């Protein structure tokens, strides 16, 4: 993969107020490529799901750190990597099954399904006791918008 033309990395605490913050940061970063309103909405939703999972599932009983890395490429592709050092996922394929949840009543088990239908591709790497990294791939504009 070619080098990104812009890259941002931020680390924040696993506090639920940061769900909104993460969405705002991604939207502001992606705006450089001048995406459509609906592409931006999809991206915000997918990021919200991944960040919420890191907050809710990765660190169930403690505060932890979450790192979000944003990379924008010349051809208009964006990647967002959301990484935690929490509990990890024992069976990633099972976790990604629609409706699968370990989260009880108010969780729908649809987070991964939403990420997959709102992005071009979703990659998950996880190790029990070490943490999880979810990478979202999304093409923002076919030509890449402004190339500055």
């Amino acid at each position: 993969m070619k080098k990104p033309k812009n890259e941002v990395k931020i680390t924040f605490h696993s506090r639920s107020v940061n769900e909104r913050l993460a969405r705002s940061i991604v939207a502001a970063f992606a705006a450089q490529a001048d995406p459509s309103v609906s592409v931006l909405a999809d991206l915000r939703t997918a990021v919200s799901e991944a960040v919420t999972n890191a907050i809710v599932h990765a660190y169930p009983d403690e505060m932890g750190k979450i790192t979000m890395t944003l990379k924008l490429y010349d051809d208009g592709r964006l990647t967002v990597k959301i990484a935690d050092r929490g509990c990890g996922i024992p069976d990633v394929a099972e976790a990604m099954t629609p409706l699968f949840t370990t989260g009880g009543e108010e969780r729908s088990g649809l987070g991964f399904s939403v990420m997959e239908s709102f992005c071009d591709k979703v990659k998950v790497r996880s190790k029990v006791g070490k943490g999880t990294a979810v990478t979202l791939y999304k093409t923002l504009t076919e030509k890449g918008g402004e190339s500055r």
Partner: protein
Amino acid sequence: MTVKIEEADKTLTAFLSGEIDHHTAKPAREQIDYAIERGGADVLRLDFAEVSFMDSSGVGLVMGRYRLMQSRGGQTFVQNATPPVMRMLKLAGLDRLPIWEKEEKKK
């Protein structure tokens, strides 16, 4: 996000506005459940007209209230779902639940 609750003729309407995510859904559902449990409404209406963002936490919000009303022998309706809200509810298969009135259904 904020929730404004109106009650009339055994119908409780919750006007939701702003962004619905895991952080905001918790106080919202507590507020709605409190109103359901305190009053004797037979019908709950969830109004999404002013909702600008919703992730899958909103699905849990609707499903949880639907189940609570059902356990009390009541009904739940979703009204004024904006396109992003509708998309999320459809993705969750909620367009197959009896929570839509004729004009609303399958926008």
